């Protein structure tokens, strides 16, 4: 860990300004990801701006019937919120499937969205990695890539985004609100937050340096039943090999439509509109779930140790959609 200076921001715009002013500054919220990376020498900020005490820790109902989640709401508080559990159980389930109780108590909504990949070559400064050290090569190609991407990857980087929460938020059409140092605000759809690794894996999101996430806005929930299914190597405290966020609107055994997003398979939560369009397009629910699975994994490509994820993802999609539709196979 390299020595750093530290300040506690007083308001969101000031925090954004403080980071924007220095190229070597970074925000810190719960610190559950950033501090680990600093200890490993992967992140070397010289100045930390602590945003954890900004008054961005409330959940409020928005006028359109959705929710407004402050960026400093802790993962555990978000998962336990009655409104979230009632209207967005998908989100609550996804959060509770992540990390551990202690980590969720510290982890923030904004930090969760921006956590870095768990690629073990990224976190080891002694091995080449394009994301950590652009141009050095990708060790995961031809290496141990069990947890890596099968969709949307590039030869520059095959890392996955590890968040569970982001997968649920993507399926729920969430919008990310930000503020920059000059006080300008904007709203970015979840589907547009993460950048394609082919454009340079070192920059993971479209956020500019010093752009602070202030909130996440959830529109009113889509019709249908919500199910989050996480497949992992042990029963808890492991990242997803594959996760599926599904919302299925079904009546009398008939599927009318739905949403589908995947985690653990790409550099971002993976949502394919063709896959969603198949929901309800076929008269037999099983046929439409199979079609959705195939459409979602279209173009998937394994790198050796992660080949199994393609079939696993399809199986998990079919099963999760069936569970959400209430048609058990």
């Amino acid at each position, binding site marked *: 860990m390299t020595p750093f200076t530290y300040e506690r921001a007083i308001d969101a715009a000031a925090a954004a300004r403080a980071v924007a002013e220095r190229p070597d500054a970074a925000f810190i919220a719960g610190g559950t990801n950033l501090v680990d990376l600093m200890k490993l020498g992967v992140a070397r900020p010289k100045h930390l701006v602590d945003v954890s005490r900004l008054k961005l820790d409330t959940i409020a109902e928005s006028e359109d019937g959705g929710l407004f989640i402050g960026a400093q709401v802790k993962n555990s508080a978000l998962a336990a919120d009655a409104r979230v559990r009632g209207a967005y159980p998908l989100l609550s389930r996804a959060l509770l499937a992540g990390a551990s109780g202690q980590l969720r108590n510290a982890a923030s909504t904004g930090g969760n969205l921006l956590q870095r990949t768990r690629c073990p070559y990224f976190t080891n400064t002694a091995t080449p990695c394009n994301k950590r050290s652009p141009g050095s090569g990708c060790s995961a190609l031809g*290496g*141990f890539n069990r947890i890596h991407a099968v969709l949307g990857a590039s030869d520059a980087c095959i890392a996955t985004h590890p968040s569970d929460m982001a997968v649920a938020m993507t399926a729920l059409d969430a919008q990310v609100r930000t503020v920059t140092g000059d006080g300008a605000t904007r709203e970015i759809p979840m589907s547009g937050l993460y950048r394609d690794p082919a454009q340079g894996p070192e920059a993971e999101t479209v956020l500019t340096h010093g752009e602070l996430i202030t909130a996440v806005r959830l529109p009113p929930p889509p019709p249908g039943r919500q199910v989050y299914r996480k497949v992992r*190597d042990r029963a808890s405290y492991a990242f997803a090999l594959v996760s599926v966020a599904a919302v299925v609107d079904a009546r009398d055994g008939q599927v009318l439509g739905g949403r589908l997003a995947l985690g653990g398979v790409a550099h971002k939560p993976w949502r394919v509109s063709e896959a969603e369009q198949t929901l309800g397009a076929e008269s037999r629910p099983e046929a439409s779930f199979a079609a959705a699975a195939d459409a979602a994994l279209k173009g998937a490509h394994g790198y050796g140790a992660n080949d*199994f994820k393609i079939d696993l993802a399809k199986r*998990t999609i079919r*099963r999760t959609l069936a569970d959400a539709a209430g048609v058990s196979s």
Partner: protein
Amino acid sequence: MALDISANPIGQPVDRIDGRLKVTGGAPYAYEHRLERAPAYGVIVPATIAKGRVRAIDAAGAEAAPGVLLVMTHRNAPKQPAFGPPRASARFARARPYLGDDRVRHWGEPVAFVVAETFEAARAAAALVTVEYEAETPALGLERHLKAAYAPETINVGMKTDTSEGDFEAAFAAGPVTVDATYHVAQQHHMALEPHAAIASWDGDEVTVRTSAQNVANTRKALAATLEIPLEKVRIMSPYVGGGFGGKLGMRAEVVLAAFGARALKRPVKVAQTRQQVFSNVGHRPEAIQKVRLSATRDGRLTGVSHEVWMQSSPIEEFAEQTASSTRALYGAPSILTRHRLVNLDMQGGEPVRAPGEAPGLLALESAVDELAHKLGLDPVEMRILNDTQIDPEKKVPFSSRKLVECLREGAARFGWSDRPKAPRERRDGPTLIGYGVAAAIRPNYLGPCAATVRVAEDRTVRVRTDMTDIGTGTYTILAQVAAEELGVPLKAVTVELGDSRFPVSPGSGGSWGAASSASAVLDAARKVKAEMARTDEARVFEATGSVKGMRETQSYKDFSQYCFGAHFAEVAVDEDTGEIRLRRMLGAFAAGRILNAKTARSQMIGGMIWGVSSALFEEAVVDPRFGHVVNGDLGEYHVAAHADVPNVDAFFVDEHDDKANPLGAKGVGELGICGAGAAVANAVFNATGVRVREFPITLDKVLIG
């Protein structure tokens, strides 16, 4: 003079006498001891190549960094004796040089050591040390180098490398029913909660090191040999050890470097290895390929058993895990062949890891036995009972006690084995397939030479001393129980002091010999004190040293073959869509002589069983053949069982008292629980799914493919 006789505490489920200290933070672990003088903090800089030499080190940046007191590299490290040949008779007592030359022998080997006023300053400065290497092409990858396999002189604990009873090849050729299966077990790590750590301080030419060691006498010898100073000038203290599992049998870099640092700076220096460093610097269970062949009659009688093993070793230091050794004694087949071969790779060498030999060996053997039972259409419990033997097929002497059949029968009854799904894929629960599995457990019983003193003060309080360690097993408690019972005093009146090289020498904790050896020595000392007290009416201090001889000098270990036995029963659910395997419940039945403390012994068994589950389903250190490092070298990605993975694990002991083992009739329990546990889970997975995974750990992708 007479003592009060109170209830017999031996065997009672007494709470740990050190429990309160531990949960309140009052028990100092290696890194936590407070000395009068503030320590300086050392951080190790590890090599980032697998083989080659250090061409240049630039330490200037680190030396100039704030708070830095010392940067040590091979250029300014004290002269040390060479490590010597890869084989040594007393390997845990040999000199272990660090920063002794410019060679890099494995990834993670220390290449520099930075000491500073604070831990943070030392860590920051360590990152400023730049090393230029002259890398050579390392030999990595077990399968790729099988052709270079060789037979070691002996395997661990001096056992024979190969054995052959009867004519296995002829038996196998004759069949009529055979199994020929090759299993692969992954490299696995100890991962004790407490990392390797040490605080060294010098007083003149005498050094004291507080560390986390399973065996203080060996650590003392190893450090004296490395520093080239007389043994009397070295004191090792290891009062509390946060888990060892074999990884703390030998002295490691933190002890040596702390001693160098403290001597150079004339103040205490403390060092802990990081979790990542623990993956590359303290040994591991080597990756191995195991070929098991069985032949049997149609009614299930084994006619031949063969177990051949190829495993990773290191050109620096040889370690041959005794993987096939218990195959020599588990079943009464007329022909038994075992063989061990080593493949040198440019990695650190292997080390004992809880139940070295049995843990990986039974994973393969007991899977193969299940394969045979399935082929024959026999109940795997009954087939094991059919092949029981009361004579050791290798040593040709009776077992001192062998209650494998009782464990199988009693375990089966309590588990509800009769209700098992007879055929694979027979039982379902919603989207999951349910399977039951069984496996046998076997583990040698050892006795090491041990001494202890017992002192009864005028106020009738008792003090027990030995350099024995308590690595979380409950040694403090059982020694208090033995002394209290023999002297007839309340448990509260006994104080136990452990882990100081100034106390009488014990064999330390390892090989499950600790309890029997140290408790026998304490019993002997207590008897001597009692005899002396009976001779006089004086109210004075009584003190005596007691001892027990090791098994090599004990006739009953020649006349009898000594093992502990057990049986594991597991139920798993396997998700048919995702392949996820979840243990539902598990029961272990064990025969391990007289149980000294029902509570701590049961904890030992359960802990072992959980590790068995973990090693069968989760644990795999992946070594990248391009670099030579453990890719998933942290506890986020090297998966050990989490609580949710082990929902319902229980164990019980069948009644036993083994009078051939030692004066107490007790046997070792520390490793027995892991032996065979993984195979019971693997067999349950097969029973659930019909898929036989021979590549451990059994991850969901392997079940899905099958």
